[in-house]
């Protein structure tokens, strides 16, 4: 085994361990946020086992995990056994495998050990040129986990949840891709670490150049992660949990962790594509030659940004009611897709003719891009608000003629 292989294995262990721990603690954070927003205190009892030390409830994830492990894992008789077991594995594998192409930091300085003379990129698959394509392909596989689970459960609520989910995920993948395409056009690469590197080099985060793409991407990513107000697939109140109604024990835990991993993935992508990744002005520097403090600082900055985005997701959850399904679909097809197309068009024009326009005005390309894209965002947003038939009216109407049941029955 070469040193490079060992380094990669260590990165995988760190990443998967970190992700699962992060998911467990995000469950705690989600419960805290839910409690605080509802003027409650939230879980604050579980601390170090066998002692009375409470530590604000930081032991709760451990207790939750133990509870899931020791719970009865009930498989109903009416399910398709093979698919029922396969579904959580599919969704979990896809959710974890996405992270092979997502950088979780910048680079580490060379360790100086034999065989590791180069800086170590904090990315499991640094050579993957088609990073974004890989991420999109795997995030589409998550739909399989959902629909397999709903189908195998052989239960109408689960199946409805799965159908809703597949329709929603497939619809929102289009605005997600359109929002992303602007960034790809602008930076000319599909590698996430190169996209961060470019934002760090220029010091201008993509959110300033791509505001419309940012809004479209954030909304579509919320829908892809099935977070409120787009959580129709699970809609506890309507579907008693949707596609994972019949699951219990560890299989349910796999589904729940996969859901949180989707949210973490969405936050990673938002931060990396639009909010500069590990870059912060005056703090982290830009180049690939780093010292240990800078390398660690970059990881911290990235983690802080991701946490901020996740906190936003969690506050959003308690702020707005769930969309109705027709509203969800019309938002995707009649608002988000056109907005994404406008963004794509504007970006393409700016990439091709930005220099020519700025030269004819006499301003710098950067400022022309920023001003143009923000004004077009504003115009497109207002246009979408005025034109979009969002409020499909389903209020009861008085009938024009009085209803006569006899005439309905007559042949």
């Amino acid at each position, binding site marked *: 085994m070469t040193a490079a292989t060992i380094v990669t294995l260590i990165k995988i262990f760190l990443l998967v361990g970190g992700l699962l721990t992060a998911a467990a603690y995000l469950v705690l954070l989600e419960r805290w946020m839910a409690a605080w927003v509802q*003027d409650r205190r939230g879980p604050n009892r579980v601390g170090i086992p066998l002692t009375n030390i409470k530590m604000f409830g930081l032991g709760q994830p451990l207790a939750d995990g133990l509870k899931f492990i020791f719970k009865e894992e009930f498989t109903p008789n009416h399910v398709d056994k093979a698919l029922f077991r396969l579904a959580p594995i599919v969704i979990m594998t896809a959710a974890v495998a996405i992270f092979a192409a997502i950088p979780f930091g910048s680079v580490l300085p060379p360790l100086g050990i034999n065989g590791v003379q180069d800086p170590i990129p904090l990315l499991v698959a640094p050579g993957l040129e088609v990073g974004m394509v890989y991420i999109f392909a795997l995030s589409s596989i998550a739909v399989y986990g959902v629909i397999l689970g709903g189908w195998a459960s052989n239960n109408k609520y689960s199946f409805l949840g799965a159908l809703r989910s597949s329709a929603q995920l497939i619809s929102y993948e289009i605005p997600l891709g359109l929002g992303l395409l602007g960034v790809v056009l602008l930076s000319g690469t599909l590698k996430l670490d190169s996209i961060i590197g470019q934002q760090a080099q220029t010091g201008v985060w993509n959110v300033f150049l791509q505001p419309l793409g940012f809004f479209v991407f954030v909304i579509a990513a919320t829908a892809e992660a099935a977070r409120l107000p787009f959580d129709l697939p699970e809609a506890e109140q309507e579907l008693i949990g949707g596609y994972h109604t019949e699951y219990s024990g560890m299989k349910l835990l796999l589904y729940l962790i996969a859901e949180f991993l989707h949210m973490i993935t969405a936050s990673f992508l938002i931060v990396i594509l639009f909010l500069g990744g590990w870059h912060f002005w005056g703090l982290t520097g830009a180049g690939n030659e780093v010292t240990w403090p800078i390398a660690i600082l970059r990881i911290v900055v990235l983690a802080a940004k991701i946490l901020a985005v996740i906190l936003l997701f969690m506050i959003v959850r308690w*702020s707005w009611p769930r969309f109705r399904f027709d509203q969800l679909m019309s938002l995707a097809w009649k608002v988000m897709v056109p907005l994404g197309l406008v963004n794509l068009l504007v970006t393409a024009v700016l990439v091709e003719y930005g220099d020519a326009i700025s030269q004819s005005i006499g301003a710098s390309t950067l400022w022309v891009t920023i001003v143009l894209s923000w004004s077009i965002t504003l115009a497109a947003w207002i246009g979408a608000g005025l034109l979009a038939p969002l409020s499909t009216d389903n209020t009861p109407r*008085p009938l024009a003629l009085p209803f006569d049941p006899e005439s309905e029955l007559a042949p």
Partner: protein
Amino acid sequence: MKSDDPSIKWIEEPKLGLSGRMYLPLFVQGLSTTVKHLFSPKLTVSFPEQRPKLGNPLIYRGVHRLNKDQAGRVKCVACFLCSTACPAHCIDIVAAPSPWPDREKYPESFSIDELRCIFCGMCEEACPVDAIELTSLLDLTGRSREEMVFDKEKLLSVYDITKDAEPMKSIAMGGTV
């Protein structure tokens, strides 16, 4: 009721203005409400360490107690009015001839099944000598059903625990001795 019934009043949904169609008022309103509650003082208390604040502990309907008179004897005269009034039939009294000259009977045993009790306070209302009262003790726990049937000694000990915090109605307030 038919849809052309004249008593039905049809109301049009208010039209959204420009800002409403931009989603912005909804956005700001929802987010500001959530953030406000995120940092507002919490309404719940950490129960075992922190006691909930009761409006007026004197009229709270918690665990029962059997009052004692000035001589330290049980005030109850075993008249059975409380057990008759009890809608849950949770009071069980065995009367015996009183050893004291000032009354005819006294309760030889007096037990309340706290699990059957609905804490309505009718026993307290019914008692002619203010012997049975509901206290403000609200954490009522036990490990078995038998343990939750409070006998005379237990009810008298509840009086000893709560007599300082919640004094018995005095004569001045219209109570009996």
